[in-house]
C-alpha cells in the first residue's frame, strides 16, 4: 500500500471515531498549548526584566567607593587605613579615559523642600548635565542642569513634586528653597513611574557642587559611566579600576559594577526558570503520549476482526503497522497544530491583559512543543502497531 493510500485510509478512521479522536487531540493540544503559553510567560518575564535594566541606561558602568570583596588584610588593617573616598577629581580622571563616552558623578541625600508655605522631605540627587542622557531620563518641561562648571542654583523637579508645589502648572523659573539655599526651577522630569524600586517622580536634582555643600561632604556616592560601546565595557571597566588604583596610592578600594554582569545573571536565572516551567509542561505532553498509546491499544482490540480481514485479503504486516502509525500521526499532528494555535491565542490574551509583559512565545518553544507532540504520538503507536501486525489472522477473524 502506498503512502498516500495509507494516510487517506487512516484519516478516514480518525474522522469516523469522532469522540475518541476529539478527546485525544484535545489532550495533545492542551499539552502543546501549555508549553507555548508557559514559555511565553517565562520569556516575557525575562524580556521585561532586561528591558527594565536597559531603561536605567545603556552600556552603564557604576563605580562605588569601597571594596565588595575581601582582600589585602593585615598591613592596611594594622595601619588603620580606611578605603579612600571617591571624589570629583577621581571622576574627572575617569572622564578622560578613551573608552568612556560620558559620566555623571552622583550624590544622594534627603533634604527639606519648601515653597509657598508647603514643605516636604525629598530625595535629592546631586549630579551634572550628563545624568539625563546616561540614565535615559526625559523632561516634560524646561531644561536640565546646565553643562559646564559655571555655578548656577538650578533645580529639576520630579513630576509629582512639581505638581504638589505648583499645582497651577507654572513651574519653570519659580523659586524654591532646599535646605538653606534657594534654587530656581529649570525643568520638570517626565513622569516615568517606579522603576527598579526607585520613584523618579518624587526626586529633586541639583548640581553636584551644591549637593556636596548641602550634605557637607566632598565625597561621591557613585560615578555613573557610559562606555563608548557594548564591546568597550570590559576594557572601560579595567581602565577605570587601573586609573583609580593609581590615584589611590595603589589601593584597590573601589568597586566597579557593569550593568551587563547584573543583566546576565538575571537573564540566566529567568532562562533557567523558563526551561524548568516548560519542562513541567512537557510532562503533560508525555501524559498525552501515554493516552495515545492507550487509545491505540484499545483500537487494536476493537478492530481485531478488521485486522484479520486485511490480512486475509493480502495486507502484509508492514501495511497494517503503517496504518496504525499513520492514525497516531494524524492524531498528534492535529493535537500539535491546534495546541500551537491555542498557545499563541493564550499568549496573545496575556499580552492583552498585561501590555507591559512582552509575552511572545519563543520560536524554539513552539517548534519543540509541536515536535514533542509528534514524537510522543509516534512512539506511543509503536507498541499498538506492532501488536496489530502480529495478530494471528485466523483468531483475529473469529474475533478472539
Amino acid at each position, binding site marked *: 500500500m502506498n503512502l498516500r493510500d495509507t494516510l487517506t485510509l487512516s484519516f478516514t478512521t480518525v474522522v469516523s471515531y469522532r469522540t475518541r479522536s476529539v478527546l485525544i487531540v484535545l489532550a495533545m493540544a492542551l499539552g502543546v498549548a501549555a508549553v507555548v503559553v508557559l514559555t511565553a510567560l517565562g520569556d516575557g518575564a525575562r524580556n521585561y526584566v532586561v528591558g527594565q535594566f536597559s531603561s536605567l541606561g545603556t552600556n552603564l558602568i557604576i563605580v562605588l567607593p569601597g571594596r565588595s570583596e575581601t582582600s589585602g588584610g593585615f598591613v592596611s588593617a594594622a595601619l588603620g587605613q580606611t578605603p579612600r573616598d571617591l571624589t570629583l577629581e577621581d571622576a574627572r580622571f575617569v572622564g578622560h579615559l578613551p573608552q568612556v563616552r560620558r559620566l555623571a558623578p552622583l550624590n544622594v541625600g534627603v533634604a527639606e523642600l519648601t515653597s509657598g508655605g508647603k514643605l516636604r522631605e525629598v530625595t535629592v540627587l546631586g549630579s551634572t548635565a550628563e545624568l539625563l542622557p546616561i540614565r535615559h531620563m526625559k523632561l516634560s518641561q524646561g531644561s536640565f542642569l546646565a553643562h559646564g562648571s559655571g555655578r548656577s542654583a538650578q533645580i529639576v523637579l520630579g513630576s509629582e513634586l512639581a505638581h504638589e508645589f505648583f499645582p497651577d502648572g507654572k513651574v519653570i523659573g519659580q523659586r524654591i528653597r532646599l535646605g538653606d539655599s534657594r534654587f530656581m526651577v529649570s525643568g520638570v522630569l517626565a513622569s516615568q513611574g517606579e522603576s527598579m524600586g526607585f520613584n523618579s517622580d518624587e526626586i529633586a536634582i541639583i548640581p553636584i557642587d551644591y549637593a556636596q555643600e548641602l550634605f557637607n561632604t566632598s565625597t561621591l556616592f557613585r560615578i555613573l559611566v557610559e562606555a563608548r560601546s557594548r564591546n568597550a565595557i570590559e576594557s572601560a571597566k579595567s581602565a577605570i579600576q587601573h586609573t583609580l588604583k593609581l590615584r589611590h596610592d595603589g589601593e584597590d578600594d573601589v568597586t566597579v559594577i557593569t550593568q551587563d554582569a547584573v543583566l546576565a545573571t538575571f537573564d540566566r536565572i529567568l532562562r533557567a526558570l523558563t526551561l524548568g516551567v516548560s519542562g513541567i509542561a512537557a510532562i503533560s505532553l508525555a501524559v498525552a503520549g501515554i493516552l495515545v498509546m492507550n487509545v491505540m491499544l484499545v483500537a487494536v482490540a476493537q478492530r481485531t476482526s478488521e485486522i484479520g480481514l486485511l*490480512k486475509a*485479503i*493480502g*495486507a502484509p504486516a508492514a501495511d497494517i503497522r503503517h496504518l496504525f502509525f499513520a492514525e497516531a500521526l494524524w492524531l498528534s499532528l492535529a493535537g500539535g497544530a491546534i495546541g500551537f494555535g491555542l498557545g499563541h491565542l493564550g499568549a496573545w490574551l496575556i499580552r492583552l491583559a498585561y501590555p507591559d509583559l512582552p509575552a511572545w512565545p519563543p520560536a524554539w518553544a513552539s517548534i519543540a512543543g509541536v515536535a514533542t507532540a509528534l514524537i510522543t504520538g509516534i512512539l506511543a503507536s509503536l507498541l499498538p502497531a506492532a501488536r496489530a501486525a502480529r495478530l494471528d489472522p485466523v483468531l483475529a477473524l473469529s474475533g478472539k
Partner: protein
Amino acid sequence: MIHLTAITRVFQMGDQEVRALNGINLEIQPGEYVSIMGPSGSGKSTLLNVVGLLDRPDSGRYKLDGTDVTALSETEQARVRREKIGFVFQSFHLIPRLTAAENIELPLMLEGVDPADRKARVEATLDAFELRDRAHHRPSELSGGQRQRVAIARATILKPTALLADEPTGNLDHRTGAEVVALLEALHHAGTTLIVVTHDRELGARAHRHIAMRDGEIIGDART
C-alpha cells in the same frame, strides 16, 4: 494447482492436544468446484485456512501452482493471498467505516494499483455485481445479500485463481442465499476454482466434488 501432502495442524487446548488436521493429502485441479462438509470440529475450516495461507500447518507440504508456499516468508505469503486467493466469509467482514465502493477498492489499494486505474476497475466491478446504486452506502445501510455481494466483489477484483468460501450463506435467508450461490457459481463457470465449506447439505450437493471430513481426516472424496 493445490497440492497438500501429509498436512498436520495441532492445537493446544489446555493440556490436551487437538489434531485439527491429521495427515491430510489432497489435490485440487484448476477450475474445480469443491465442497467440504463435516460436523463442527471436523477440521474443515482449518483446512480452508491452511489452503488460504491464513494458517500455517505444523507439518506437511503445501504446493500452490508448483511453489512450496509453506516455506515462504510472511510478506510473500501475504502477496500470494492477495493475488491468488479470494476469501468469502459467513459474516461478510466488511469495514464499517468504508463505503461499498471503498471496501471493494481495498485489495487494489494493497496491491498498489494506480488510483485512476483503480477507479475504473471498481466501477466495472460495481456494474458486474449490480451494486452501482449502493456504491456510496456504508455496510450498515446494506441488506445481508448486498453485503455478501460486496464481499464477493472484493474477493474477486484481483481475479484470484481460487475462491474460498466459509459458510457463505450462513447468515442469509434462503432466497438471498440462493442468489449468492448463483453468483459464486457464475464465477466458477468463468474459470475460478471454488471451494465451499458448509453445513448446508443442499449447498454442498451442488458442488462437483464432495469432500467429507471427520476428526481432522478426510473420510470421503466423491465426484458427481
